[in-house]
Every structure is written in structure tokens, then in C-alpha cells.
């Protein structure tokens, strides 16, 4: 179980973008978090993925309280999460070939020798063909690069997937293909999913349950906070 308890987080002192929000994702469950852009849901997703340290509250993963974030977090905790963001170009090193991009987490964790076999396994799972693996990000489309970023997120076999607006820039067919790849992975591994987005139709079709950001805030008693999206 992944529990976010009473999380307060932000980027400037005294100006939290998330304030006292709680959310739980059960084992193997998929939860859609629906909200307008700029509402703070991406910040919450980053907290959940241990990429952003909250100012208040607790993250509890499978009963274990998280005490450190980012590079300070223990490796077993960090690698339990696979994260995919909205804009693949911002999260992909432009110098890397797609094959190396997919294998990046393996190299970072000292498992370089597994790279070739892993890439051969994951590239077809996300619909990438061999010729694309030799290209660099500027030589492929957004959709193809996002497929590579998904493979990179899966390569360490995470127990939790955090998809932050994974398909917001993509066409309908690529969206359906990426969601299918995520769901195939989850069916095989039982991984849990937190999918953050603004498209209600998509999240309701994709996830076991969908919660609205506004409900989350009301439930946690902070209806008084101005809605920054307005």
C-alpha cells in the first residue's frame, strides 16, 4: 500500500501548492487523480515518487515510513517507483540513443551488464522497433520518445507506477498504446498505479477509481485554500 498522509508541499516557503492532502493507493490498485493544470497534483505525484520532499505529512510505503527523498532515499525505495512525466523531451538526455535511455536506470544501479537483454525485452513491450533504438531523441517523435521513457520507467520492475499526464501531448492511438503497455505490465507484476491527469474520460476508462483533486482537498479540510487554477 502507498499512503500519502496529510501532505503539505511546495517550492517556496509559506506558499504550499499542496496542503494537507491524503491519498492511498492499494496493492495492485490503479487510482486516477483528476485535476486542472496548476492545481498541485503534479507536486503530489512527485512527493509520492520520492522526487520531492514534502514540508509536512508522511509517505508510508508498504508499512514503512519514508524518511528521505531524491538521491538520499535508499535505493530499494527509489527503485520501487517508475515515473513518467508529461513532456518526454524534458526528461530525456538528448545525447543518449533510445536504447541507452531505456537502460539508464540499469547503469545507474550498477547493472550495466543486463542492459542489452533488458532493452531487447522492454522495447517491444512499448511498441518500439529496433531501428528507433539507435536514434537520439531529436530523431524521433514525441510519441516514440514517450514510449522509450515508459520502457525506462519499467526497466527496474517497479512496484509502483506514477504517470503524471503521461499522454497529454499524444494522439489517441499512441495514448491507447501506452496505457495498454502500462496495463500489460501491471497485469503481469501486480504493480500499483497513480495516474495524474486532467482528462476525466481517459482516467475513468483507465483506472479502478478516479478521485478529483477538489474532493481530495475538501475531504482533508482545506476548502479555504484558493484554487490556483482559476
Amino acid at each position: 500500500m502507498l499512503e500519502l498522509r496529510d501532505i503539505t508541499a511546495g517550492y517556496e516557503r509559506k506558499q504550499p501548492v499542496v496542503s494537507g492532502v491524503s491519498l492511498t493507493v492499494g496493492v495492485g490498485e490503479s487510482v486516477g487523480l483528476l485535476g486542472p493544470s496548476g492545481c498541485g497534483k503534479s507536486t503530489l505525484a512527485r512527493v509520492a515518487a520520492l522526487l520531492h520532499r514534502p514540508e509536512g505529512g508522511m509517505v508510508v510505503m508498504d508499512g514503512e515510513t519514508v524518511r528521505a527523498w531524491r538521491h538520499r532515499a535508499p535505493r530499494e525505495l527509489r527503485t520501487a517507483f517508475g515515473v513518467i512525466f508529461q513532456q518526454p523531451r524534458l526528461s530525456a538526455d538528448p545525447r543518449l540513443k533510445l536504447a541507452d535511455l531505456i537502460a539508464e536506470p540499469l547503469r545507474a544501479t550498477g547493472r550495466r551488464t543486463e542492459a542489452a537483454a533488458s532493452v531487447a525485452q522492454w522495447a517491444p513491450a512499448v511498441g518500439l522497433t529496433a531501428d528507433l533504438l539507435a536514434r537520439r531523441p531529436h530523431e524521433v517523435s514525441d510519441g516514440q520518445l514517450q514510449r522509450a521513457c515508459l520502457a525506462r520507467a519499467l526497466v527496474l520492475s517497479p512496484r509502483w507506477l506514477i504517470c503524471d499526464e503521461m499522454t497529454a501531448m499524444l494522439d489517441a492511438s499512441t495514448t491507447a498504446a501506452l496505457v495498454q503497455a502500462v496495463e500489460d505490465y501491471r497485469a503481469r507484476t501486480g504493480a500499483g498505479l497513480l495516474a495524474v491527469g486532467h482528462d476525466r474520460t481517459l482516467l475513468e476508462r483507465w483506472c479502478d477509481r478516479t478521485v478529483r483533486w477538489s474532493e481530495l482537498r475538501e475531504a482533508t479540510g482545506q476548502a479555504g485554500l484558493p484554487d490556483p487554477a482559476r
Partner: protein
Amino acid sequence: MNAQDTTAPLLSVRGLSVRFRMRGGGQVEAVSGASFDLAPGSCLALVGESGCGKSVLASALLGLLPGNAETAGTAHLAGRTPDEPAVELLTASEQQLARTIRGRRVGLVPQSPAAHLTPVRTVRAQLEETVRELTGRRGTRSALRAAAEAAAERAAFPLDHLDRYPHQLSGGLAQRAASALALVGDARLLLADEPTTGLDRDLVERTVDALRRHADDGRALLMITHDLAAAERIADRVAVMYAGRLVELADATDFFGARGPRHPYARGLLDALPDRGFTPIPGLPPELGALPAGCAFAARCDRATDRCTTLPALSGGVACHHPVGEPATAGALVKEPGRARTA
């Protein structure tokens, strides 16, 4: 609806092709032989996935292609008054495009309003500057002010927000400010390039409704988008692009309604929507630099036959040898349409 049937087109595109010369001698055919008409008062949505050539087509119409591009075909912008004679967009000089076309007769509603608004200046200052550019510094202060406010009103941008800076605006108002800039010159043809990317659904709806009003005011609107829901909401007609070619040109009511798309790719695209089948089209689109002979969709198509190794021409609104909704020809398909795949 169907204004294009009764009104003379404002924009007439025939056989438009755009080819890029690549380093190393290769060529990429980004757009091949696109033909369509666009009448005042109507909206054509050009849909397709990223990299299919639809944005290149828009850049060609605005004369904004990079130096290694070659164009063929024609794009005729009809004249309205002696001041606005008919013009051939593909062969017009850069000077003519800059001085008399872009912003004045063809307005561009940009993909990302943030990129088109200067962060350090108020919306009013930017509108007035655009007015000054377009009118060549003629007119008094008050005329300038009035013209800027008129543009804001056309885009439904609230006048009491004119003195704000871009970062003080919500996403919706920033999009309207960018639209106001596009409308300063009162262009009759509007090109909207992915105007809804990354916007929330209700903002998408408000943005496309605002664009629709500009068409209802008598402008011609070409909206380029990968967002089929936005296209459905706004368009009179839909043009589907795949691997640089228009593969279907249909009435929006038919396309999104009971009849549905006739081209297998267009069908697949619609069926991928989460409120429809949510089923991806298998495979990936081909490289524009290495297109197969024949139909570019063949490798992904469940209706493909031997005939598909020759390029299908666009006829009757669809470029396909075996369009959906037509009886299969002489033994080409042996099973139920949509399932058959002969050797």
C-alpha cells in the same frame, strides 16, 4: 454547416507538397499532394498524429518553412477588395507575406500562448504594438487604443484585464490574449495550430468555442489538432492526414456520427479514444523519409490486400482501395470487413 458548398472558398489548396532536402542528400516528403477548400464561415479540422505533416502544411501556408524546404502545388487565397487582391501563398515573396499577408489576411492562433506573449509587457501594450506594426504607425493614440480594445473584444478578452501581465492571467485568458493578437489585423483566414494542447478539458471547450465564434463571424478557420474531441466540437469538415497525405476528407457529422470514418486509419484513430474502443492501432507510422511504395498504412491495416501495393488516390473523400462502408471488390476480402487480411 457545409458553407463550403454554397460559398466560394477563401482558401483553395491544390496538390500541395512539401519536401525537405536533408544533409547527406536524402529527401523527406513531409506533405504530398494535399488538396482542399476552405470557405468563409466554416471550420476544417486537420487531424493526425504528431509528425504526420499537418504542422508543416500550416507552415507552408504562412510561408514559414525552413530554407531546405521545397514546395509544389498551389494555395490560392481569394481576394476580397482592391486592397486585398487574390494571392498565391506558395510563391508570394517573403516581403509580400510579411507586409500584407501574415497577421493581416492570415492570422495564426499559436499552440502555446505563453510562447507568443512577452512576459514583461502588459497585454494592452502587446496588442497596441501589434496594431502599430500592422497599420504602419498611422493613427492617433486613441485610435491605437480603440483598435487594441476591439481586438480584445473579438477574442472575448475582458477589457479590465488588459493592463495585466501574462503571468497574472489564467491559462484560458492567456489563450484568449494570444487569440486577440492573432485577430488584431482582422484576418479572414485563421490558422490554429494545436490550440488546445495541454489544456484542461473545460478550457479546451472554451477555447474551441471561441474559435468557432470567429468562424461564425464569417472567418475561415483551419484548425490543426491531434485532439479528436476538440475537432468534433468545432469542425464542419474533417481532413485526416497520415504519413504526409490526406487520406480522408469528410463531413464532420458523418465522420463522428453513425456512419463513421471510411479510411481504416481514421477509423482506428477514432476507435482509440477512451470513450470508444480505447484500442491502439497496431504498429508505428512509417518514416516520412522512407515511405513504402503503395499505401503507407498497409503494414498496420487489417483490410490490406495486394491492391494496396499501389498508391490509392483520394476519390470520393477517401484514399483507400477498400474503404469501410463499400462492398469489397472482386474477391479482395474474404471475411467480414474489418477482420479480413488476405495473403
